[in-house]
């Protein structure tokens, strides 16, 4: 048996340890740690892309399966981490202990990848916890009062959500008698074993609800996204949150598909509440970082529509899942890019103007003249987040809404489109501030290492939506997942 398909994970695990050696270097090894992480992530990303749509390959007694679904999610996680690490080179220039930042980031990426490839509750939970435990300290990386507060909140809520998840998993194990996810699906299709299985479902959905930041479990997320350093926020909202979605795809869509009529109402309610509340509250925010945090809550609501469609109609499950995966992909790119732009503004532009108020919308006034490249990319990212064609954000959202319409959920699609229109208001407001307000300061230098990741994200947002293989990959991933659950 060859372990060739596991090489990306092994590279990340090894580099996470190697990076720590930088502490023995004379200058603290900041550059060394940063470039080792970049190379490791880049090589893994290339390997994942090279293998592409693999035939599902089980490893380790069927606890781990590499399939198109895990490949597309590994690509998303590696890409987001790569963007954050490139930005981290500039960010860590004046910070002590950069190697810890990179090491924690690589461990978090490894945890997410393990979740994406796991086919069993045990590795899924271990990966979930690895990704969470590595990101708790990252939120407090700057050791400011805000950062520590954010980190502590994140820790308590994160630990609570994983306990809920584990408690739910214990009931599912109890009723199914196995921890293998496809076997759970088989066992539950023979005997639903209510109410114990429902109890498990309830705990699992609330555990995931916290991680995915669905309303009413979202309160912590906005505070943490706001209090953490920009780059960490980019990682949390673009990768860590997406990990909860892939875990939920595996557990709900494969393992607990027999209970789908029971999660239909609950998830429909969560999706509608999340979209609406996220967008309404985002519209009144003055801080761009907080606005982006609420917008990322709202986008979780759009993605949650996929679950509702699957529970309503299995015939449309494939397109719904593909839409969910596509929107996860596009939102990861847009969101990571937008948060790194906020980091540029906070670091390079505004710190010269108003200390302590880095993220205020007023600081974006006239950005088109202060930092033209950044402003242009931010405008593209904002329009894509708002769902303006022909950006990726439009196409992915369109696929989700289309699946809702096809599954006779017209009301849900209408709520989604209305929300999308509302969200355009606050995204366009940022663009308006950047181009139609007078600049407060002279033109500044945009740091290359911050601009580069945003440029990658922007290119992705423009091109990937028009690149057919993206859709092929997403649909193939959706089909694999449904086949695993025995639906297709």
């Amino acid at each position, binding site marked *: 048996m060859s372990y060739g398909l596991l090489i990306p994970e092994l590279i990340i695990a090894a580099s996470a340890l190697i990076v720590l050696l930088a502490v023995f270097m004379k200058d603290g090894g900041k550059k060394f740690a940063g470039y080792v992480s970049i190379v490791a992530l880049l090589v893994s990303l290339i390997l994942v892309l090279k293998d592409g749509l693999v035939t599902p390959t089980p490893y380790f007694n069927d606890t781990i399966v590499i399939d198109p679904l895990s490949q597309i999610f590994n690509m998303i996680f590696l890409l987001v981490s790569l963007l954050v690490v490139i930005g981290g080179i500039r960010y860590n220039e004046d910070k002590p202990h950069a190697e810890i930042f990179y090491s924690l980031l690589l461990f978090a990426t490894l945890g997410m990848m393990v979740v994406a490839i796991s086919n069993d*509750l*045990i590795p899924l*939970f*271990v990966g979930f*916890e690895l990704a969470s*435990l590595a990101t*708790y*300290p990252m939120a*407090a990386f700057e*050791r400011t*009062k*805000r950062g*520590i*507060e*954010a*980190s*502590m*909140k994140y*820790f*308590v809520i994160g*630990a*609570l959500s*994983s*306990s*809920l998840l*584990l*408690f739910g*998993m*214990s*009931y599912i*194990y*109890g009723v199914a*008698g*196995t*921890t293998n996810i496809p076997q759970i699906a088989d066992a539950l299709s023979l005997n639903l074993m209510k109410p114990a299985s429902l109890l498990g479902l309830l705990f699992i959905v609330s555990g995931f609800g916290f991680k995915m930041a669905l309303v009413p479990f979202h309160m912590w997320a*906005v*505070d943490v996204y*706001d*209090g953490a350093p920009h780059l960490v926020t980019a990682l949390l909202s673009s990768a860590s949150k997406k990990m909860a979605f892939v875990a939920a795809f595996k557990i709900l869509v494969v393992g607990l598909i027999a209970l789908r009529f029971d999660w239909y109402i609950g998830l429909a309610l969560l999706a509608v509440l999340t979209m609406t509340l996220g967008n309404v*509250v985002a519209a009144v925010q003055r801080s761009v970082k907080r606005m982006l945090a609420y917008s990322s809550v709202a986008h979780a609501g759009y993605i949650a529509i996929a679950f509702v469609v699957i529970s309503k109609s299995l015939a449309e499950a494939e397109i719904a899942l593909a839409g969910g995966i596509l929107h996860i992909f596009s939102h990861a790119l847009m969101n990571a890019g937008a948060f790194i732009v906020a980091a540029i503004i906070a670091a390079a532009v505004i710190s010269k103007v108003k200390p302590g108020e880095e993220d205020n919308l007023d600081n974006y006034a006239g950005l088109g003249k202060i930092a033209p490249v950044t402003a242009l990319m931010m405008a593209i990212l904002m329009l894509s987040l708002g769902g303006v064609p022909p950006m990726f954000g439009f196409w992915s959202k369109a696929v989700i809404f289309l699946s809702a319409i096809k599954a006779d959920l017209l009301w849900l699609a209408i709520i989604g489109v209305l929300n999308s229109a509302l969200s355009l208001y606050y995204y366009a407001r940022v663009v308006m501030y950047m181009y139609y307000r007078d600049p407060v300061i002279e033109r500044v230098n945009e740091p290359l290492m911050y601009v580069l990741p945003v440029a990658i994200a922007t290119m992705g947002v423009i091109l990937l939506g028009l690149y057919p293989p993206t859709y092929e990959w997403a649909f193939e991933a959706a089909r694999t997942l449904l086949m695993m659950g025995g639906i297709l």
Partner: protein
Amino acid sequence: MIPLEWYLALAAVLFSIGAYGILVERNGLKVLMCLEILLNAANINLVAFSRENLMGQEFALFSIAIAACEVAVGLALLIMLFRYMDTIDLETFNILRW
């Protein structure tokens, strides 16, 4: 042999104690202990269900190890909290609202 229901009831009671503690306690250390109780409630469930095969016990071993890691991270964060704010009272959090 003790029937399964008794174990499940014990786990449910432990889980409720832990959840209650997290909701009302303001002391960081006590919150940390309540989080551990939550994980241990799940462990009891896993081991109690593990009558036909050993997967549950295996899972419980993994989760015990994870609980230990979680305490390590949590205590480190609490130490940092104490160093910078001179308290481990979680009620002092007031910057990030809305």
